[in-house]
């Protein structure tokens, strides 16, 4: 028996997620807590990537695309209405990431000062490296 995940009426399909990253995206979007239909497909065959993950969300959900661009800017987002793609959203790598991740450097001022924004600025686009605006500690998003 096949699971009916192929068509959704209204919602979002996040496609071309790097295999293995699907669960990350799932967690970032808090999909474990929602009560509408969500499908996480792992290791789907893909022409481009060999294997990919896909997430299908049967709901008009407000997504922070900045965060998705950070996890993996190569994935594509399809907004579905009436069972067809209404809009394709291209992700880009955000130049500035605020209050998404925290600096782990114990010498960083963010470890003691409360109520300040945790700001990371893009520093190497190719390697997806971000730098804490306070202490300059470098993070690649894949390790976060």
């Amino acid at each position, binding site marked *: 028996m096949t699971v009916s995940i192929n068509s959704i009426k209204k919602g979002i399909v996040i496609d071309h997620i790097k295999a293995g990253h699907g669960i990350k995206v799932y967690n970032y979007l808090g999909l474990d807590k929602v009560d509408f239909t969500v499908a996480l497909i792992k290791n789907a065959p893909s022409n481009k990537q060999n294997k990919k993950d896909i997430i299908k969300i049967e709901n008009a959900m407000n997504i922070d695309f900045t965060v998705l661009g950070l996890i993996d800017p190569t994935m594509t987002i399809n907004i579905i209405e009436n069972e067809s793609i209404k809009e394709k959203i291209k992700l880009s790598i955000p130049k500035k990431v605020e209050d998404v991740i925290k600096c782990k*450097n114990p*010498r*960083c*001022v*963010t*470890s*003691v*000062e*409360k*109520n*300040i924004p945790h700001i990371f600025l893009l520093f190497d686009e190719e390697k997806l490296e971000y730098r*804490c*605006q*306070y*202490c*300059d500690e*470098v993070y690649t998003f894949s390790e976060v």
Partner: protein
Amino acid sequence: MLEGRHLIEPMDFTNEELDGIFELADSIIEDEKSYMDKCRGKILASLFYEPSTRTRFSFEAAMYRLGGQVIGFSEPSSSSVSKGESIADTIKTVSCYADIAVMRHPKEGAPKVASMYSDIPVINAGDGGHQHPTQTLTDLLTIRRTKGEIGNITIGCCGDLKFGRTVHSLIKALSRYENVKFVLISPSELKIPDYIKREVLEKNGIEYVEAEKLEENMGSLDILYMTRVQKERFFNEEDYIRLKDSYILTPDKMEYAKKDMMVLHPLPRVNEISPEIDSDPRALYFKQAKYGMYVRMALIAKLLGVC
């Protein structure tokens, strides 16, 4: 225009803006008396969350010599910090009383936080192992006054290059000048961090070599920048014994040096420069400390917009 700006890291200012500070420092050195009233009526808040007598004195003397006054604390236990007040609240309050603030803090990025919430200029006087921009201004002014220019030099940095924040800042700052070459002399455990090699040196196509022994490289240097190597930084006793003497500058090593080489050191020194060197005209570290005060006078005056 530097009026109202902050100095958090050396690269906050362009080379032209730095030149403006150095030119003002030159003219203060030339005729200090005509600057003694420039900051009359102005107050510097000196916020030292960890003790650093040397840097604090340098700033406070600079303000007094400009005719200004100083308020502040020199250890957090005597301040509201011990009551758990945030940096943001401290600087907002201090902004009500003072015209300019200088901050030394053990946490990296603390002065940056202060600058985000401050109505008055904030100067970073050292944040953990991160930045020490006014030391860099001091080093650059010393090089400029002694060599006549900042570019066209081969500079040897010797000692603990891994944790030495003054060296990191200096390399960054020098990378913006023409024809600067580096000889990086350190034990293998204390080599310059990769990110400095990658982002600063290699990215800017700057020539550098890494070495272990000082005397073998002495002859090629126009400047020798010494820093401390502490015994506890070594991973094993053998390496320490093998290398400890190669990082102590002694008169016999100075024999290999050019006649006009400059020896710099951010001070305080422990035993990495033998006191016999002090009388050598090439030893500039005490002069450097004096220039440090003048460059801070120039910086304060510029940020306050009085010169």
